[in-house]
């Protein structure tokens, strides 16, 4: 059974339809890279999966449970299964790194402080920032902040992780440290959906690449096929423009 099941999903802002019927089934453990020009709807699709955006028609289920915007309890349950990492990190600047990670588990999962702290320290260790437990976000580099954001999302033990252009706001020399963490997650079997501009990374790590164009899934397939032998002129054009 797919862990994320999207059928005939349509989303518009006013009269501007940005997703024009998306069908996508994601199996557990799959790593999916979503590529495409800006404005093609890739970020919007990602944000629909954890309910940051409401869609007008179609169906979206996670773990077989439908996404219901009006039902706060259902959304709270869904968001515990779906983690999200943002382009702009969005760490909470008034809390230490440790508290950033521990806050949601203690509130939502009623985790006690001691086990929450042990978990947070283990997660920081995993992203290579064990010594930053008591630091504040503004004392960290962009790459470090993004790794904390990953640890924070993992603290909720999600089944699916959404990555929305998570290296786009980073200086080039900091991109690698974040991608290495994501790659490790992929190897450990985490289900990942990532919107990315890092084509080499997408080619190396993902099982499936989705090329979005004008609000539709335009082409989809294994990375070797999609990058090696693009079928549609739009994808050929897109890949060509990256190499210019």
């Amino acid at each position, binding site marked *: 059974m797919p862990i994320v099941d999207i059928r005939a999903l349509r989303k518009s802002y006013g009269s501007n339809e940005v997703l024009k019927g998306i069908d996508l089934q994601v199996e557990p453990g799959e790593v999916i890279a979503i590529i495409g020009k800006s404005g093609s709807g890739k970020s919007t699709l990602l944000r629909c999966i*954890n*309910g*940051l955006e409401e869609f007008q028609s179609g169906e979206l289920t996670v773990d077989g449970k439908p996404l219901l915007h009006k039902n*706060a309890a259902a*959304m*709270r*349950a869904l*968001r*515990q299964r*779906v*983690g*999200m990492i*943002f382009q*702009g990190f*969005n*760490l*909470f*600047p*008034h809390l230490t790194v440790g508290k950033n990670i521990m*806050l*949601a588990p203690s*509130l*939502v999962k009623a985790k006690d402080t001691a086990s929450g702290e042990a978990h947070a320290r283990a997660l920081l260790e995993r992203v290579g920032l064990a010594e930053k437990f008591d630091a*504040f976000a*503004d004392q960290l580099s962009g790459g470090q902040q993004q790794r904390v*954001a990953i640890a*924070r*999302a993992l603290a*909720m033990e999600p089944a699916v992780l959404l990555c929305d252009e998570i290296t786009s706001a980073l200086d080039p020399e900091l991109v690698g440290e974040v991608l290495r963490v994501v790659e490790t997650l992929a190897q450990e079997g985490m289900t990942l959906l990532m919107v990315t501009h890092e084509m080499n990374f997408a080619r190396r790590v993902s099982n499936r690449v989705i090329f979005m164009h004008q609000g539709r899934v335009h082409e989809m397939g294994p990375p070797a096929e999609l990058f090696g032998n693009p079928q549609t002129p739009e994808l050929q054009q897109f890949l060509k423009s990256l190499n210019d």
Partner: protein
Amino acid sequence: MVDFSLWDIFRNLLLALRWTVGLSLIAFIGGGVVGLLLLMLRLSKLPGATVFVSCYVQLFQGVPLLVQLFLAYYGLGLFGINTSPWVAAGMGLTLYASAFLTEIWRGSVESIPRGQWEASQSLALNFAEQLRYIILPQAFKISVAPTVGFLVQVIKGTALASVIGFMELTKVGKTIANATFSPFLVFSCVALMYFVLCYPVSLYAKSLERKLHAHR
């Protein structure tokens, strides 16, 4: 004519100062509570809430405090409610302060980046938890300086309660001035007392701001 020593003037003004402080506290606590409720109402995005709160704010910001006090004092009387100056002044100042405070706080909340809402939402926090743990602590820091700045306005605003017969600092000052025939001396003392009351508040706002920004 009764003979007033400088000490007599000062002593009577100091006694009246209590009521200025008391009225300021009522206005600030009342205004704070009502302002916070209005802020919650507005942030809740309940149907009609935004319109209601913005009308409330426009109404009480758009009418002079003096006129509001008259309306509270004589208006309640019209409805057969026997108002003391305390009730009328407390109510008028509460309404006035709540309108300004809710606007100050709304501005502070809106200055928190959208990403903070989205990140906390993605972590499955509900609306109340988002406010309590993420948004309000950050908005609080931003709002300290304008809030305390407004507190100074409220303290000075209590002087207007003298027109509905409230025996606070200004009213007592006027009474003593009439009795002593030395208005300049008396009102200088009155001015000094307002300043002594307001200046530490301003200083406190500055130090609080520094402290809150030290480890953000």
